[in-house]
């Protein structure tokens, strides 16, 4: 359907440079993936809001919030994993560019979540990109009531609390999404990474886990120690350096360009 206006091979404008395989493998991963990447989110958006919105495209398997590695709070992106490819495609087709928490979010196919990718980079601020709002004029629905002051909205927004994934009764329960082969990550460098990718792809996309969700995670997962964390973060930090998706908001125009290109 709609082949006329779409180059089916150009499934994403991005090339995630952290992807370990070839361009061909990357495209294959995108074309079979059941994970979407969501960008340009408000820091305050919760998993429950995402669940409500994205479950309208299909049954959701998991949500992974992108976190600021220093504050352990959401920093404007996340991954949503579905069970079926069709639902994944529908999420990209129907949700990208729509509004969540007053922001037009971007939804793209992702090549598959791997541990470490939830960590964004530390500097904060600059979350608002008001230029997006101009083409989504909120007042066109009805010409009534003269609209609400943006100030009030901002105030409201500030009253909300961001979910802190680092403290509280669940301190030990940080949303860890450790691949089974976590141990290989650090030591193997680039080489080991490729190996883990292949493992990951097979595991994440080959089949759905409704039946055996329960058995998915071995007991090893729960053994994770908080001491692991700094090592792991620094480990991934270097890789994320060149990943456009983890670039600080507002520090380049690339994102804006991408958005235009996709439209």
């Amino acid at each position, binding site marked *: *359907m*709609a*082949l*006329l*206006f*779409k180059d089916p091979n150009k499934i994403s404008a991005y090339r995630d440079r952290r992807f370990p395989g070839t361009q061909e493998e990357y495209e294959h991963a995108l074309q079979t993936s059941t994970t979407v990447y969501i960008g340009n989110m408000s820091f305050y958006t*919760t*998993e*429950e*809001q995402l*669940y*409500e*919105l994205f479950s*309208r*495209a*299909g*049954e959701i398997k998991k*949500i*992974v*919030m992108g976190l600021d590695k220093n504050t352990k709070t959401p920093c404007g992106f996340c991954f949503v994993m579905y*069970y079926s490819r069709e639902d994944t*495609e*529908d999420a990209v*087709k*129907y949700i990208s*560019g*729509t*509004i969540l*928490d007053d922001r037009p979010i971007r939804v793209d196919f992702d090549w598959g979540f791997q541990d470490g990718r939830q960590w964004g980079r530390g500097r904060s601020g600059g979350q608002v990109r008001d230029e997006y709002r101009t*083409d*989504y*004029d*909120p*007042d*066109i*629905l*009805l010409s*009534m*009531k003269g*609209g*609400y002051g943006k100030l*009030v*909205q901002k105030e*409201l927004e500030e009253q*909300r609390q961001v979910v802190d*994934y680092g403290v509280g009764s*669940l301190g*030990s*329960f940080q*949303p860890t999404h450790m691949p089974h082969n976590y141990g290989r990550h650090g030591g193997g460098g680039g080489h080991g990474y490729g190996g883990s990718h292949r493992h990951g792809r097979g595991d994440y996309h080959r089949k*759905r886990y*409704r039946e055996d*969700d*329960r058995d*998915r*995670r071995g*007991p090893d*997962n*729960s053994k994770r120690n908080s001491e692991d964390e700094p090592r792991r973060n620094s480990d991934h930090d270097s890789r994320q350096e060149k990943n456009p998706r983890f670039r600080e908001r507002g520090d380049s125009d690339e994102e804006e360009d991408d958005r235009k290109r996709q*439209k």
Partner: protein
Amino acid sequence: MSSWRSLILRIGEKSPEYSGVIDFKDHIDACFGAVRRELDHSEDDILTFLLQCSEQLPHKVPLYGTLIGLLNLENEDFVKKIVESTQKSLQDALDSGDCNRIRVLLRFLTVLMCSKVIQPSSLVVIFETLLSSAATIVDDEKGNPSWQARADFYITCVLSCLPWGGSELVEQIPEEVERVMVGIEAYLSIRRKVSDVGLSVFEEINKIDKLHVEQDFVEDLWSRIQDLSKNSWKLESVPRPHLLYEAQLVAGKSHDFGPIICQEQSDTPVELSRLNFGRQKHEAELKYPQRIRRLNIFSASKTEDIQPIDRFVVEEYLLDVLFYLNGCRKECAACMVGLPVPFRYEYLMAETIFSQLLLLPQPPFKPIYYTLVIIDLCKSLPGAFPAVVAGAVRALFDRISELDMECRTRLILWFSHHLSNFQFIWPWDEWAHVLELPKWAPQRVFVQEVLDREVRLSYWDKVKQSIESTPALEELLPPKGGPDFIYTSDDGDKTEYTLSKELNSMVKGRKTARDVIIWLEESVIPINGLDVTLRVVVQTLLDIGSKSFTHLITVLERYGQVIAKICPNEETQIMLISEVSSFWKNSAQTTAITIDRMMGYRLISNLAIVKWVFSPTNIDLFHTTDRLWEILRNALNKTYNRISDLRKEISNLKKSVVKAEKIAAMAKAELDGAEAKLMLVDGEPVVGENPVRMKRLKSNAERTKEDEVSTRESLESKEALFARALEENEALFLSLYKHFSTVLMERLHETFGEKTMDHPVGDSEAMAVDEDDTPAMEMDKENGNSKRNVGYTIGEKEQWCLSTLGYVKAFSRQYASEIWPHMDRLEEEVLTETIHPLFRKAVYSGLRLQVDQ
């Protein structure tokens, strides 16, 4: 200069390729010029692309037809190929039952006829083939009337072509056209009228007789076509660019169109029992669904200047665009607002989109697609469309109590999502009057559910602020609070508080699930009993996982075994669900998600969920909130998804088995061949031929055989799983219907006696509204919108019955394909003679089965 490709693609549009001006003659000339120049170099590419465009942009097909007619004057061979290729495509589409393709290709052939590319009589031959197939299907003796949906589809296709070429056909071969029309009339006289019962968006419970008066969709189209014929086949909505080139086109050579064949209806049963008939009819309607059911939500004054046939054509355009441009937001919206018609159609467009959003049993796409389309149209036509959408919402809101339950849910989901994209701005004061209605009044429930969904998509304070002009509505907002953890302080039961603390520290101390289980078994259960243990464990674990969806999942993944250990059976699982529901009583969403996840981890069975939903305290909430229905929907949906996945896997594995068999057989044949050769060396069994090759062939044969066996084994194991899933499904639906039957029995008798719903108590106001048939919009303006609602007089019990019956129908309809295989048992065990006629009616109409008179 623009390429031939973009000229073909953009023809008829206000685009830079055509200097931003729409003039059909200029467009065709420019496009024809470019294509003619390139035809020698890129004939194949042009052919493919032209066919693609004609098929996927069917609203432009008259332009493509004329273009091809002109090309026919230059290069007959090229056009011959187009005709041949179209013939093949049409045959393929007929064989596979590809409805959209069949319809669009027939329209394409019609415009080719207009441009003299094929003979009018060739087109009539195609029509007659379809017509005769249709007549055979509905014939009691030769055919299989349960497949009437297919016959109706063929007839609709033939009729649908006439706006595009009726005038040309009649001008050239009037007798043959007349023959077709007589044939269609004869068909209409032998087919059965299609009843919309079970599929109409507005449940006209008060008008059982009305069905016999109304036309069904085929008759409706037939009467539109007759009007068109009386009007000398003139209409405004179909451009006729070929007339601009009449003088030239007449010189073109018409090509032969090869015969097409409609498949025989294979499964003709000797005698159809009522149930078998219903089952096959269900299958046929799935394969050949009705494309649209008109909604008529606006007053006639909004669309009355549009002729009936033009209305039909515009609907066809819109549905085609929605179908073919799905996934291309910009193009889709641009095409929808830029149809080639000389009148305004924004009301018609809104009605058409809402008719798709609310189409029963299923819209062609997920509802969220239509949400997006409406958002995009509001942005494309900021001056016109938002007000039309708001008008549609008001009209639907006014009739919400007649709206099918499933449609109400879709409307709530759509509206909340729509508003979330427009800063939640809505004139809520218009609906403030719902506060005066009882808490079960459908309008009040609607507002409450919309607000609940808004909060889920956003946050409480934000939604509260959006209704600030009508602060009273705050009463309908969901509670603001978070979880309701009973051990936040030691005010209550000290023992339980202490146990909870202890468990919490075990979790923090990273004790394994096994350690926790041992602790429970040795020191908690023996002293405190199972009930207390269950409460402490569930409350504490939920509290630990209360921060987010991910936290919940993490807790369940780590300590799910603990829950499984203390909730091993249905009874304890029901206690578990109750505990979840009380812990999350302030959040319908989190309750639903938690139960859903627990079912996902198989901590709760779907049967336990059904049983819990129908527990006495919950039953009392059936008519006032969606909370329980959401949980029930999720449970059914998850079960359905599981079984669908199994079906897909099995079908893939079957293919793999065939493939593996083939490969193994080939390897075997190769080995046998090589072995046979060996035998012939001088009559002596000398190992002559290359032993390495022999060894390789042998191991290859063995390996492929092993592959075949293992694939077959995995197929068998999946099939065993599937058989079990089917059994579970049967148990699930039996349980669901038994529960429905039980809870409805007494209340229906109390409320309606033995009556069917011909004259339901207290529904007089709704009846009056129906009968005077005043369009909702007009009413609003003239009388103020509160008038009608004051009349809501339905008592609590009656509304409870109506709502619950509405859900019975909705579930039956949505899962009809899953229910049909178990129908015999359902009839035997649940739908017995003792059930209330209204319950039977709800089930049957959901399944589209005739109710016994």
